[in-house]
């Protein structure tokens, strides 16, 4: 589904150019659960931005469903984000003072393919899949606990039935117990519903919940292995 070939990303910062990604190549199949692991500054966030069609590589090729993403316009990239990709952020990024249901429906207003009448049903289905009980759906987002907020964010990422879910340090702002619940949610979505998930993290422990771990350091992949001892929650 995803093929990256020789991705290079250079940030121009004043005098010295900063080469954040140096020749990164890998591919990803449908239904995989991959963790991209690396210390901060390793380029993993930049890689996620490129995978998520938020940024373009300076050089190299990125194919998504056989489509060369480098050649698409800003609007076409926005369409890909809307219809094919779901994001989960470390800091949840929910609209505050807004109900859970409305937060989950937010991506749908930018997706013309989903009729207005189906929005509510889709949002409810996504919330159920993300494991948030129905009695919370009318709550305002700022009345929820961290774990609940992240499940709302996961539901929001799911609502457009994306091909790829990108989670950037999804447990970074949670205690280990709620982190476990969130990781469990990802595992369930992967196993039971066949979602393709890319998890970005700097913690080995978190990465070990995935089926495959790509280690990245100084903008290069240093290892890419199957994880046979997957942690089960």
């Amino acid at each position, binding site marked *: 589904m995803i093929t990256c070939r020789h991705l290079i990303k250079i940030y121009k910062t004043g005098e010295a150019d900063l080469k954040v990604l140096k020749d990164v190549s890998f591919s990803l199949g449908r239904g995989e659960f991959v963790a991209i692991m690396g210390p901060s500054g390793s380029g993993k966030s930049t890689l996620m931005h490129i995978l998520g069609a938020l940024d373009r590589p300076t050089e190299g090729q990125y194919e998504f469903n056989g489509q060369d993403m480098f050649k698409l316009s800003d609007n076409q990239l*926005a369409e890909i*984000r*809307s219809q094919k990709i779901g*994001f989960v952020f470390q800091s949840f990024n929910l609209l505050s003072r807004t109900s859970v249901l409305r937060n989950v429906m*937010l991506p749908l207003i*930018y997706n013309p393919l989903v009729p*207005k009448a189906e929005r509510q049903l889709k949002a409810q289905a996504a919330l159920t899949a993300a494991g948030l009980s129905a009695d919370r759906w009318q709550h305002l987002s700022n009345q929820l606990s961290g774990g609940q907020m992240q499940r709302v964010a996961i539901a929001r990422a799911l609502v457009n039935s994306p091909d790829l879910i990108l989670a950037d340090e999804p447990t970074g702002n949670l205690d280990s117990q709620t982190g476990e619940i969130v990781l469990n949610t990802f595992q369930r979505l992967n196993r039971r519903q066949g979602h393709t998930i890319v998890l970005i993290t700097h913690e080995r422990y978190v990465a070990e919940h995935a089926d495959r771990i790509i280690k990245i350091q100084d903008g290069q992949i240093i290892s890419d292995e199957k994880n046979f001892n997957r942690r089960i929650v």
Partner: protein
Amino acid sequence: MLFTDLLKETVASLTANKVRSSLTILGIVIGIGSVIGMISVGRGAQQDIESNFQALGSNLLMVMPGAQRAVGTQVRSGFGSASTLVLADAEAIAGAVPNIKNVAPDVSTRKQVTVKGNNTNTSIYGVGPEYQAVQSLALTEGSFISSQQVKSRSKVAILGPETKTTLFPELPAAVGQKVRIDKIEFTVIGVTVAKGGSGFGSSDDLIYVPLSTAQQYLTGSDAVSTINVEVQSAELMSMVQQQINDLLMVRHNIKDVSAVDFTILNQADILSAVSSAAGIFTLLLGAIAGISLLVGGIGIMNMMLTTVTERTREIGLRKSLGAKNKDISRQFLTEAVMLTFLGGLFGLLLGWLIASLINKFGGMTTAVTLSSVVLAFGVSGAIGIIFGYYPAQRAARLNPIEALRYE
């Protein structure tokens, strides 16, 4: 993005910060309100002037002494004060020019008028019986000056309603009372109906006396101030004007057109000159009020820029969820237009309120016209777009990655 979604998002974000939104709207409310209020004063003055002139009769030519110049273009020194027109000129016009309904010469002066206990300084008009028809004067009591009274130089007077109230505040009727004009005693024989209007062109504060009486006792000369000529129809105005001009040039022995010693004013000319002056007045008032509208617009821009900065992360989020640049810019533009539109709506109410208060307590005619309502909404919408455009563009151009990281 559907329009209904856009509206929902806009309402949600405006209500998220009610105090700030209302204060920003208030700026526009004051701006639009003052524009509408001020324009209504100007328009009211214009309508006042126009209705005053209409009350004077519309097929009227006024022949006045003094050099001929285009109306309203140059300062005429001594306009109307020269005494080159005499009663014989009026008689000649009536006798020689066809298509004329009435010729009514008048002589005007200002004198001190006294009665027992009261006195006033007002305009005295010496007129003949034709004057009543020419100026469409009606009387509340008594009768107008007759040709017999003109012939015999009777010391009789017709009071304007305001003059009557000033001189005889207690009396219900003034006919039969005596007034002293310049120390000469006159008998009141009538009071005219109020024509309305105040200040400029008021025909309610004056006294009419027979023309011959005025010439003999008050001005002491044969000269007349104006020869009012009522033409049979509006189409004949310019023809009659030309004929009067030719006749008077012959009578006054003038060969050169630039040396004429009289002016023929056309009612339409005066009306257009005066109402264009009132138009400038309206524009000026509107422009002054427009400054506050501009300030309100800057307030909108300020709020929108603050909002964009505050909601940087939200913008990044929306972009990552698939919002296109135009979705973002449209959202912020709609917010700005919504603010100004609400401002325009309440401003319209405020302006209307100001107009009615000025009318009630300031004694000025005001008129809120459809054009100023359209102007209010047009201008407030335009202000929303103009002052919302830059913040909206700024929001749309934000880099989603940097926006998501923004603290």
